[in-house]
Each structure stands twice: as C-alpha cells, then as structure tokens.
C-alpha cells in the first residue's frame, strides 16, 4: 500500500479577516493536492501567492476556512482541518514535521537540546535523545563547539541547520519545508539537500518551497504550480 497517498487535500480555502482594519484577505480557494510516500512536491508560484500559507494550513498553524486535509496517521485517515487541538498536537508529534524559516525556541537552551526536544516529547530520556541529535548536527556540519551554546548568537545559516535537525530528528513520514536552504551557502545547501533526498528515498513524503534552483532540481519529483484558480480572487 506504499502507493496510497499520505496526504489528500480537497477544496481547501483560506482567508484572513482583520477586524481592526475591516479587511478580508482571501489567499487560497478550491485547492486540491495529493502527496504519496517517497514524493517530493515543490510548490511553484510567485512570492505572496500563498505557498507558505498553504504549508501553515496543512500543519494546522493556520485554520482552514473550508475543505479537507486528509492525513494518514497511525493507519487511519484523519482531517487536520477539523482535528481537535489535542489530536493536532499528536499529529505533529508523530506524523507531520515542519521546517519554518525561523527558529523560535526558549532562549538560553543549548542547540543540542533544542534538536533533541521532539524526542523528549515522545517520552525519550535526555540521554537517549542527545545521541541522534548529535548525529544529525554532525551530518549537517554544525561545529561541535556550538552544540552546548544557545542558537541566539548563531549565524542565520547555523540557526537554519539547527532548525532542520530539529525537524528531521523525529523521522516524521510527512515533512513540510518552507525554504529550508534559504539561509545556507552552496556547500551546506547541498548537504541539507542530500540528507532530505535520502529521507525521501526511504519513503518520507515532502511538500516544499525551494527558491534555490539546485535544491529544487535535486529534490523535486513533481512540481505543483499554485494556479490562479487556487489563489482566491
């Protein structure tokens, strides 16, 4: 059954109502999308056309106005769009990973522990969680002298790699990637891309935004143009 989609989005609509300004901004409308294990689908559309909004809606960070976001989770199909907060938190622990453009964490926590945290949330001990965290930071070439430091003082590229390690550690079967290589130089971008491609080969499904042509070329198994009709008028 590896051919069955892990994610099926139907008729998704998202708008923002700004009460103080009396404005309603429609961003997405009637969007359909399917994603299977081992696929990396890259969203294509100009800036400001709703790519990040789509990823955030799929992660449950934004609330969908209409439509279904059907996700295979623990062998059953659940709708992210109507999931209770408690179920949504479970989906994020186990099934959906998300790499944002920014690292938002408790200040003064060391990088190694930030990466280890998703495993702690699943009940691992700190000793159990630190080993795979260290392995990922090594794979991403983050110098070991930084592991014990809080990332606030890191460069953008270093923070981004901490962010990626944190998103990859739990081995989620679905990854949402919002420009994971944007802050990286060519060498580090290639490293991240290779790591992601290895995950995809092993069956992880990915939906991402990549402005970096090299990363897109290596990773994408399919392009998904966000058409005018999906963008709300």
């Amino acid at each position: 059954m590896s051919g069955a989609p892990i994610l099926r989005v139907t008729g998704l609509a998202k708008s923002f109502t700004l009460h103080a300004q009396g404005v309603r901004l429609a961003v997405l409308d009637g969007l359909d999308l399917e994603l299977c294990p081992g696929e990396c689908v890259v969203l294509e559309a100009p800036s400001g056309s709703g790519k990040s909004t789509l990823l955030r809606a799929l992660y449950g960070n934004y609330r969908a106005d209409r439509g279904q976001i059907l996700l295979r989770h623990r062998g059953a199909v659940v709708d992210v769009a109507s999931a209770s907060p408690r179920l949504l938190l479970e989906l994020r622990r186990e099934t959906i990973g998300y790499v944002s453009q920014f690292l938002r964490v408790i200040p003064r926590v060391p990088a190694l522990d930030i990466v280890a945290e998703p495993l702690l949330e699943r009940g691992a001990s700190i000793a159990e969680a630190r080993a795979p965290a260290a392995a990922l930071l090594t794979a991403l070439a983050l110098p070991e002298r930084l592991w014990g430091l809080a990332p606030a003082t890191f460069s953008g590229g270093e923070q981004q790699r901490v962010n990626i390690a944190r998103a990859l550690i739990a081995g989620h079967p679905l990854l949402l990637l919002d420009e994971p290589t944007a802050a990286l130089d060519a060498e580090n971008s290639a490293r991240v891309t290779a790591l992601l491609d290895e995950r995809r080969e092993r069956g992880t499904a990915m939906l991402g935004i990549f402005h970096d042509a090299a990363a897109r070329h290596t990773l994408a198994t399919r392009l998904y143009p966000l058409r005018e009709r999906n963008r709300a008028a």
Partner: protein
Amino acid sequence: MKDQPLLDVEGLTKRFGDRTACQGVSFALWPGEVLGIVGESGSGKTTLLNLVAGRLAPEAGTICFRLGAGRVVDLARLPETERRRLLRGEIGFVHQNPRDGLRLTVSAGANIGEPLMAAGARHYGTIRNAARAWLQRVEMEEGRIDDLPTTFSGGMQQRLQIARALVSEPRLVLMDEPTGGLDVSVQAKLLDLLRRLVADLHIAAVVVTHDLGVARLLAHRLMVMQRGAVVESGVTDQVLDDPQHPYTQLLVSSVLAA
C-alpha cells in the same frame, strides 16, 4: 484517544457583586499538557485559576478531577475538609510572588520537606535527601539547604517555590504568572526548567500569564479570556499566528517585538 482527561471543567461561573469574573468557562486537560490562559488584567484569568484551586467557590459549573485511584470527584461540590483530604499532594500551586508560596521563617530544606511531612513522611534522612534532590533538580546549590528563603534572589526564591509545589508529585500544577516578576535572563532559564519538569513528571499544568511570549514557549494550548469569558482557544501557535477573534487580534498585534 480513549484516555480520560485529568481535569474537566464545565460552565464555570463566578460573580463578584454585579461583575462577572468568570462566565461559563469550560475546558479539559490531559496529563503532560500545559494550558496557557492569556488576556489583559481583569479578564478573569486569576479568578479561573483560583476557582480550579478551590480558593474560591463558583456560583455554577463543575470541576471534575480524576484522582490517582481513578475516581472522579467534582471539586466544586466537595465539602472543604473532604476536598483537602482528597487533594493533599494532588494539586500544586505556584504564585507569581514566591513569598506567597514559601514559608519565609524556615530554611529552604524545610520548605521543600514540609509538603512531604504533611503527606505522611516521617524519616528525617529521607526528607532531607528528597529536599537535596529537589534543590538539584531546580538547579540550586545544595549547600544552600539550610539558608532562609529571604537570603535568596527573586529567581532563586521562585525555583524554591517550584520545588516546594512539585515535591509531593502533584498531578496538576496551577501557576499564576510564574515568571512575572523576574529579569528576562532568569525568566528564560525558568521557562526551560518548567517545561522540562512538566514533561519529565508527566503532570498537567494551567499557566496564567499576560505575556504572549511566555505562553508561546510554555503552553501547548491556549485560552484567550476577555471580561470573564473565553473568546478563543486552540493550539498555541494557531491562536497566536492566526487569531480569529477581534480581541485576540488586538492582543497579538499589541506585542512589542524585541
């Protein structure tokens, strides 16, 4: 998700004279979860916390709490003595001002040991070892065990209060602005500590705060209160990043970015 909530609050209402401090509030809480309650001063956050803690009696509503043995009791309807007996050690409270939660005239070690003695511990060595272990757990020097709380800094006093609140291993902890009066540098370490303790001990926590930054980093779920009523609730980042209610939008857009 067959597991039952630890706390199930339904239609909780409290009035002070003709002012409604809490208006039909409902929520459920499971072990390992941190629920944040945000809203401006006077929105009813602390009243709600005090109702759940049994420090105030509600006019209406139920507060169903699952005891360790699995029995469910309605805290809103339990006689005072019965409630005290049942809840001994089951619910911890952390005040904004550590001086409200500590005994200032006895040592740090005694502050941590007291709840254990109240729960029946009698052996001096055991109690002292537990106090020492908890000092370590909240990252305080063991050598300070015989010092009075008044000799500690505000951040240290707050750590001590947290140790005192958690030593009896309650299953529910209620916190009122736990990082409120502290320097930001101390606040960050304390947030990290609280989050780890909640995860390690698998307890449930309700945290009242007016600081949306604290709420984002500490709470899994959020309830937004305005004039005693819950106007919006959901997963924390969803409420803060895609607020639906005009009041939540106002709160979120009023935060100063550092």
